[in-house]
Every structure is written in C-alpha cells, then in structure tokens.
C-alpha cells in the first residue's frame, strides 16, 4: 500500500488521541499486512470513505482505552463501554481522525474523499473479517491498553 495513503492516518491517530483525549499513543514498529481476521480488543469503529478511490479505517482498542477516551473527552467516568455516550465518543474520535487524514489526502492529491458516518461495535471475543481488500495495520500502546489502526484502500494515488 502506498505509504502516502497510510501515513496521514497514523499521524492523525496520534495527534487526535492526544488533542481530544489527552492520551499518549506510542507506535510499535511499522505498518504490517493484516490477515483477513482481526480479533478485536473489545471496542471497534469502522468508517468508510469514497471519492476517486475508496477506503476504510478500522480503529480497535481495549475497553479501558475506550473508557478513558470517553472520560477525557466528556469529563464523566463511565462504567461500561456499552454506555451510548462511550460509543458516541469513539464514533466521534474516528470521525475526527478520518476527517483530518482525508483532508490532508484531498488537499495533496485531489482525491475528493468524503466520509460516511462511522459504525461502532463492542462485544465479547469479536472477530472482524475483512477479506476482498488488502489492509495494513499499525499498533499503538497507550497507558490504558492497546490501540490498533487498520487501513484499507481500493485504488491508489
């Protein structure tokens, strides 16, 4: 996958986690090819975008990370990730991360990418299966648990 497409997402994850939720995310290694099945850490959000090319960003994180994100954004402690406000916070985070990254891509490469509303899900031992499109992942660690970015594109710049 073209590095020009994936790097803005990595940068946006780090920046927006810090800026919105005051969470330091430390990158581990480099992007790697993802297998078809991603075993979720517990809370996931997928956002799709389309324009001259199509793509999808998956953010996946431990429950504690999601709870801290929500707490830091909303200044309220939640007990469960199933609280609608926690899931709304993750949804908005994904929206902002994606929006920031694709703004850079649009300005640089005139891709005309537009976001669709994100979906968020949480569950026990959830597996996300993403065949038909090659994707790459990048792992972060945070003080509260793990955070994964998985990006997929159909087409290139």
């Amino acid at each position, binding site marked *: 996958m073209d590095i020009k497409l994936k790097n803005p997402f990595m940068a946006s994850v780090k920046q927006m986690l810090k800026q919105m939720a005051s969470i330091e995310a430390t990158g581990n290694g480099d992007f790697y090819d993802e297998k078809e099945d991603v075993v979720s850490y517990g809370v996931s959000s997928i956002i799709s975008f389309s324009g001259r090319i*199509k793509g999808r960003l998956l953010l996946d994180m431990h429950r504690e990370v999601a709870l801290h994100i929500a707490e830091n954004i909303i200044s309220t402690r939640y007990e469960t990730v199933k609280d609608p406000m926690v899931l709304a916070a993750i*949804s908005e985070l994904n929206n902002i991360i994606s929006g920031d990254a694709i703004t850079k891509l649009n300005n640089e490469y005139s891709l005309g990418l537009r976001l669709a509303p994100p*979906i968020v899900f949480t*569950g*026990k031992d959830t597996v996300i*299966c993403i065949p038909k499109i090659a994707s790459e992942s990048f792992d972060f660690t945070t003080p509260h648990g793990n955070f994964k970015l998985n990006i997929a594109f159909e087409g290139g710049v």
Partner: protein
Amino acid sequence: MLSDNYTDLLKYFSIAIEEVVHTMAGFEISASKDPSFFLRDDSPRISGLMLLPSSKNAILSITVSLESASILVSYMTGIPVDELKEEDLYDGVIELVNMIAGRAKSLLIDTTHSFGLTAPFAIYGRDYELVLKKNVSNLSKKYVSGDLEIGFGIFFM
C-alpha cells in the same frame, strides 16, 4: 416513519435478499411477522456488512446465528456442516451480503436510486452491539425458513 421513496427502495432490497438466498442456498425465505429479534440473546452470530455510498449513504447488514450460517453456507458450498471451518462461515456470509447488494443495485438500475458498492466485511462474536452514528432511517426484518433465521437491515444515514 419512512417516506414513500425509502419504502420503494426497501422493496427492492427485500426482493434481492429473497432471490439471492433462494438462488445460492435453495431456501424460500419470507419475512417473519414476529418482530422479536434473536439478536437480543448471547449466542454467537455473524453479521455481514457493506457500506453503500450514495447521496444518502446506507449500510446493508445481514446477521445470522452460527447455526443458520452453517446451514446457509453448507447449502451454498455443498460442504457438510460438520466439515465447515469458521472462515468458511465468515466468507459465506460476506458473499451473501456482496451478492444481495449487487442484486439490489441491478434491480434499481432504472430508478432514481443509485449507490456504490464497497468491500464487505463481517463481524463475528457473541453479544456484540452495533451502534451507528445517529438517527438513521432503517428497516430491520427477520426472514425465516424452517430453522433458518436471517436478520436483514438497511440503515440510511
């Protein structure tokens, strides 16, 4: 309350799901009058999802229990139920959603409704909850045929 415009669109998706399941797996399914949805319990299930980008973005979703997935995929592929692997089930459900979206798109070709197709994906687990960004018009139906139950949803954003 969905407008007539949406109702018309949804009719074609309903035709698509019935046709695809019949063609691929040989089942005549019909919409259940029972509004209760098995998704409320804790049993493992698989959801196949596809974003349909258009002026009104939509998400298409098909959800089945593990048992229903096994039945469907066994009939689709000819592989006996006890020889099916988990990946076969994800792949099968993903294929179904892919075909339903494709069929609906072709049924709608002479109408004012048009949408794109994107790479489908699946979520597998127990007790997961999907949360969409907010306030979407949607149709959720349960289709049945004997022991087979298929949850169908289309969420307009």
